[in-house]
């Protein structure tokens, strides 16, 4: 319990620090939302000044920060200039879409990587293992961008999958089951792109962790006790190899919001990624801060969950 509490405090402190830093960097970066407007000769300079005052852009930095914290407490998380609305609702919708994609992709990635990594580790150094390591090497080398574009090309050429977006035109009028199918069909390619870019690293780590465990004395001893092969792998080897994999899982969780930005932009998936990109380009200050902070929350949360899992899974950490 003390352990969990300590880690929790640590996470909170981290979040607070990140919020300060993000605020600092984004406000100190050159340019602001209204610069474009100022260049437009049709808009009077006084309008710009008035707008700036309305959005309190000329207040000193600490005051703005505190006002923003208050806004977070109210559930608004600041105000978006471009969308002319509080930031929070924008973020939730987009975050939900992103999570739909990334949770599915993470699930499939781990479901593929675990058995494949174990299978490869069992056959370490032999041909099947070489096949797996070469395939993962190739996948690692191909940039995510190329993967996503390649899949998009496939969609366009074959017509089997829609070329991007989350829903078809006329989505609202579809009956429930057809709605789900529609989303699923739109999800297929982005999820594939994400899974393909995630599995090489996962497989390699699973393989390495399991291979190391398979050589240990207790595995040999367990084999000598007649424990059947399947049980040996999943009830003996995997738990013993769990530590590095749990940390990796923490990273998977942490990257749920941030890892899919590229794929979302290329495939026009209405997630957090494109929103953030737009906001950065337009200097939509509070959207950027809100987005970054949300991603950080997941990152920190993911690590925290990994720490707790590690504590639960490994008695040696508990009794220290």
């Amino acid at each position, binding site marked *: 319990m003390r352990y969990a509490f300590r880690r929790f405090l640590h996470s909170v402190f981290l979040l607070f620090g990140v919020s300060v830093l993000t605020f600092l960097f984004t406000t100190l970066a050159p340019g602001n939302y209204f610069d474009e407007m100022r260049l437009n000769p049709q808009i009077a300079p006084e309008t710009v000044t008035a707008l700036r005052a309305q959005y309190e852009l000329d207040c000193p930095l600490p005051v703005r920060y505190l006002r923003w914290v208050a806004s977070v407490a109210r559930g608004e998380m600041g105000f978006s200039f471009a969308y002319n609305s509080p930031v929070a609702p924008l973020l939730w919708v987009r975050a939900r879409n992103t999570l739909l994609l990334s949770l599915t992709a993470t699930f499939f990635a781990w479901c593929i990587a675990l058995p494949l990594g174990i299978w490869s580790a069992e056959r370490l150094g032999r041909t099947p293992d070489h096949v797996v390591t070469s395939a993962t090497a190739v996948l690692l080398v191909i940039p995510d961008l190329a993967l996503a574009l390649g899949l998009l090309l496939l969609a366009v050429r074959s017509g089997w999958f829609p070329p991007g977006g989350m829903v078809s035109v006329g989505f609202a009028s579809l009956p429930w089951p057809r709605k789900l199918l529609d989303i699923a069909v739109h999800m297929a390619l982005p999820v594939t792109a994400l899974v393909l870019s995630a599995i090489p690293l996962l497989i390699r780590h699973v393989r390495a962790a399991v291979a190391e465990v398979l050589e240990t004395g207790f595995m040999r001893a367990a084999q000598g*006790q007649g424990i059947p092969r399947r049980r040996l792998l999943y009830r003996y080897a995997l738990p013993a190899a769990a530590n590095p994999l749990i940390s990796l899982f923490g990273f998977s969780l942490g990257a749920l919001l941030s890892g899919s930005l590229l794929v979302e932009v290329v495939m026009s998936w209405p997630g957090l990624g494109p929103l953030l990109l737009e906001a950065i380009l337009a200097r939509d200050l509070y959207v950027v801060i809100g987005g970054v902070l949300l991603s950080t929350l997941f990152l920190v949360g993911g690590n925290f969950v990994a720490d707790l899992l590690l504590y639960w899974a490994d008695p040696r950490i508990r009794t220290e």
Partner: protein
Amino acid sequence: MEPLLDIRDLQIEYQSSIGELCRALDGVSLSLRPREILGILGESGSGKSTLAASLLRLLPPNGFVRQGQILFEGKDLLLADRAELERIRGGRISLIFQEPGVALHPTLRIGRQIEEVLRAHDSPDAASRRERSQDALSSVFSSDAERIYSSYPHQLSGGQRQRAVIAQAIACRPSLLVADEPTASLDPATQSEILLLFRQFKEQLGLSLILITHNPGLLAGFADRVAVLYAGEIVELGPADAVLQQPQHPYTRALLQCMPLLDANNGTELDSRLPVIAGDPPDLSAPAGGCRFAPRCPERMEICTMREPVAVQLNDTHQVSCFKYGG
């Protein structure tokens, strides 16, 4: 009486990464009766661990059996299929490795680890498994069995871990226990206790034991028979007292002379040099013709470098592979 275990002319080779073949065991023949304690005396490189591993076909991937038979309760283990092998491992024959700390799974409780073995050998329901597991622990831990049951390996001392491994080994009531240097890293008091445990199991459970060690002192007063292993061959085999007190093979003699011993007054000669065996164990990837021990043998004769000696029966129970006795 039908032997429990009958090893016939076992030859095992390892293939190195560059394709070199190294013969770790070269024609080993041994038999073991029920309720017998056989000591295998061998130093590093003698092939003793290979012998232990081969009994349950636990050789590493680069090791293979060139020829030979391992007959256990009448059936050849080398021909057994996977299901049969899993049934025998832990169920009829149990193996105890060196280094108890390494033989236990680091994140499973001791009781659970014993129950896993029981589960693998027809113990269907959890309640009976728990009971048998606790029984096994009580038979090796005179007190404290409850606490050990729910402990993790890292919470136990070396001696306690070794006892836990032994409890796990006898949980399914095997007929043969093979222990490879079971007391290696333990202090003498614990060593004696472990040996006592083994003897207890021999009496109560009708267990046979093969004790593999490099320390003759362990076998004295404990083993019924002793086989001396050198460079993959059995050079002497006979009743423990005979082999340890009147060794016939030059290697056995030289080995026993190396040990500092306490005499009747518990004294020794201070500052004297211990007699040593000159040279190093032979390179098994390139065996020279002739007796393996010849290069280091103080009683070497000319014939020893030309041919390999065969086992000569000195009497009903004692055999030696040395040209000094014929062959």
